[in-house]
């Protein structure tokens, strides 16, 4: 059970790290390139710890690389939100706000887990994610409360990611932290940011789900092709 939990949290971090890495050399300014790369590297570090631990718990001899590079999309357990294409900068910031606010509440509670490894990973990661949440908050405030164009784009970004919010809080068998318990504090934080930014939480009737069961969007396959290609072509490659 717990290996599946560690795997799901690790996959969330790994896939979002890959998505954020796509911004490098493409962000609006050099400084933002560096910021997004830093956040991606934080997430990659979390993914490494979590996947390594998931492999140990599974006991089948798979290490972090085996799990990251030798699984196909149906075996990934990340939520759909993190695999969505980056879109424009506002879509990326909308996802960052939604996901970092969720991950912050999650890690904050996971620190008290009876599982020493998960508690240790969470204890380190919660500081990183606190900054990720702040970074996204700063941008959502500026874009939402900026020009007409930035407001329009930020609102459109929220519309894009909102159908994927509910999945974050779905029950997870064997979870150390009940995802449903994160919804209220998440709502309080994100709601306050949106209100200050002059943005409305989108009213969406759509609720997309399936990532935790391996039922992904078409986007994940392309992401994995790029991420896994080198390792599969040259197994064991290092530099």
């Amino acid at each position, binding site marked *: 059970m717990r290996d599946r939990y560690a795997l799901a949290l690790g996959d969330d971090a790994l896939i979002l790290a890959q998505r954020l890495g796509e911004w490098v050399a493409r962000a*609006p*300014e*050099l*400084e*933002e390139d*560096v*910021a997004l790369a*830093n956040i991606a590297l934080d997430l990659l570090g979390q993914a490494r710890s979590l996947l390594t631990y998931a492999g140990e718990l599974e006991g089948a001899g798979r290490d972090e690389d085996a799990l990251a590079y030798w699984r196909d999309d149906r075996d990934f357990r990340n939520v759909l939100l993190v695999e969505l294409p980056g879109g424009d900068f506002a879509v990326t910031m909308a996802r960052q706000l939604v996901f970092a606010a969720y991950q912050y509440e999650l890690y904050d509670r996971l620190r008290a887990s009876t599982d020493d490894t998960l508690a240790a990973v969470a204890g380190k990661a919660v500081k990183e994610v606190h*900054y990720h949440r*702040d*970074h996204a908050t*700063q941008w959502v405030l*500026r874009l939402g409360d900026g020009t007409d164009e930035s407001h329009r784009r930020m609102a459109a970004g929220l519309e894009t990611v909102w159908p994927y919010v509910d999945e974050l809080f779905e029950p997870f068998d064997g979870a150390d932290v009940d995802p449903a318990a994160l919804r209220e504090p998440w709502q309080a934080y994100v709601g306050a940011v949106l209100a200050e930014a002059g943005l409305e939480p989108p009213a969406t009737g759509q609720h997309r789900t399936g990532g935790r069961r391996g039922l992904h969007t078409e986007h994940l396959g392309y992401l994995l092709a790029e991420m896994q290609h080198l390792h599969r072509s040259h197994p064991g490659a290092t530099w």
Partner: protein
Amino acid sequence: MTSQWPLWEVFVRAKRGLSHIHVGSLHAPDAAMAVRNARDVYTRRGEGVSIWVVPSDQITASSPDEKDAFFDPAGDKVYRHPTFYEVPAEAKHL
């Protein structure tokens, strides 16, 4: 981008007791973002405990043309240097 973000000078204090040192400059849309960008660009490897940012256009600098008038007269006046005191070994960062 039709217009670039304004430029900020970044000062980082390496640890308590030391003063802020100029480490470089960066672009940011406003002061709050400049502090965050400075955190990402200049303190990724544990370089600091405190950051200052200052709008670059708020700095008034001495002119290179005035270099001789400004600095040369200080060159040959050794009696202005406090070199005749013994500095106690315990006084660090003096």
